[in-house]
C-alpha cells in the first residue's frame, strides 16, 4: 500500500513536471522557432551534401589513378639495354684513337669503297657451270 502511494506520488510529480515543461515548450517565441527551423534546414541540407561528398574526391581520385597507371606503365616498359658486345667496344676504341680524325677526313672515300663492295659482290670467280 505504501509502495503504491509512493509510485502514485512519483507519477504525479512526473506528470506535473511534464505539463510545465510542455507549456514552456509551447511558449517559445517566434524568433526562437524561426532559428530552430533554420537550423533544421541546414541539417537537412547535409543529406544532399553527404550524397555529393564522394564527388569532391573525384578529381583527387582521378589524379591518383593516373599516377598509379603511369608508375605501372613506366616500371613495366622494356628497358633500353646498351649492348656491351665486343664490337661496340672495338668501335669505341677506333673512334678514340688519334687516327680516327684522319679517317673521318677520308670518310667519303671509305663510304665509296663500302658501297662499291656491296654492289660488285665477291671478287672471287664463281663456278658457273654451263
Amino acid at each position, binding site marked *: 500500500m505504501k509502495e503504491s502511494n509512493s509510485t502514485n506520488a512519483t507519477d504525479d510529480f512526473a506528470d506535473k513536471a511534464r505539463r*510545465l515543461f510542455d*507549456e514552456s515548450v509551447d511558449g517559445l*517565441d517566434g524568433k526562437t522557432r524561426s532559428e530552430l527551423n533554420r537550423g*533544421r534546414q541546414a541539417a537537412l541540407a547535409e543529406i544532399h551534401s553527404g550524397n555529393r561528398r564522394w564527388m569532391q574526391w573525384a578529381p583527387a581520385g582521378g589524379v591518383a589513378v593516373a599516377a598509379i597507371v603511369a608508375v605501372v606503365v613506366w616500371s613495366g616498359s622494356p628497358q633500353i639495354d646498351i649492348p656491351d658486345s665486343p664490337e661496340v667496344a672495338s668501335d669505341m676504341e677506333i673512334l678514340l684513337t688519334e687516327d680516327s680524325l684522319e679517317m673521318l677526313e677520308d670518310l667519303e672515300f671509305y663510304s665509296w669503297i663500302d658501297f662499291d663492295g656491296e654492289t660488285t659482290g665477291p671478287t672471287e670467280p664463281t663456278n658457273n657451270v654451263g
Partner: protein
Amino acid sequence: MNAYAASFAVSSKADDRTGVDTLQREKRLNRFFADVEKRALRIAEISVRDRDEALDLVQDAMIKLARNYSGRPPDEWAPLFYRILQNRIRDWQRRQMIRNRVMVFFRRGTDDDERDPIAAAPDLAGRTPDEQLQSREAMQSLEHALTGLPGRQREAFMLRTFEGLDVAGTAAAMGCSAGSVKTHYSRAIHSLRETLGEHWQ
C-alpha cells in the same frame, strides 16, 4: 537495345531510386526534427542556461544526425539524437568549467552569470496572468532544482520525463545500462521532490 543503352538505363533507374530514397529520408527526418527540436532546445537550455548556446547545440546535433546517421532506421533516431545532444552539452559544460576557472584566476567574472534565459512567452492556452505566473514560477523552480542535480540524474530525468523516452531509449541516449537509468531516474525524482517541497506538488 545495345549494351551501353542498357547499362545507362539501369544506371538511371538506380539514380532515380536513390533520389527518391533521399527525398523520402529527408521528409521523414524533417518530421522528426520538427517533432523534437523545441523540446530538445528546452532540455539543452535547462542544462546550459543560455538559449543561444542551446540553439547552437541543438543545431549541431541535428547536423550530425543528418550527416552520419540519417541512413539508420527512424526508430533509432531519437536515442541517437539525444545521445549526440547530451555529448555536446557535456562538452560545453567542460569547456565552460575551464573558462570559469580561467576567469576566476584572472578575476574577471562576467556580469551575465545570473542571467535568466527564460524568455517571456505569450500564453496560448488562454490562462489568466496569475495562472501563467504560477506556471512560470513553478517551471523556474523546477529548472533551478534540476541544475542542482548531478549531470546523469538530470539527463535521466529530462529524457524520461520531458522527452518521454522509454528506459531502453534513455539508456541508449545516455550510453549506459537500463539499470543505471532506473537508478538515476529514481534518485532524481527523490532529490527533486525533496528540494521543491510539498507545496510545489
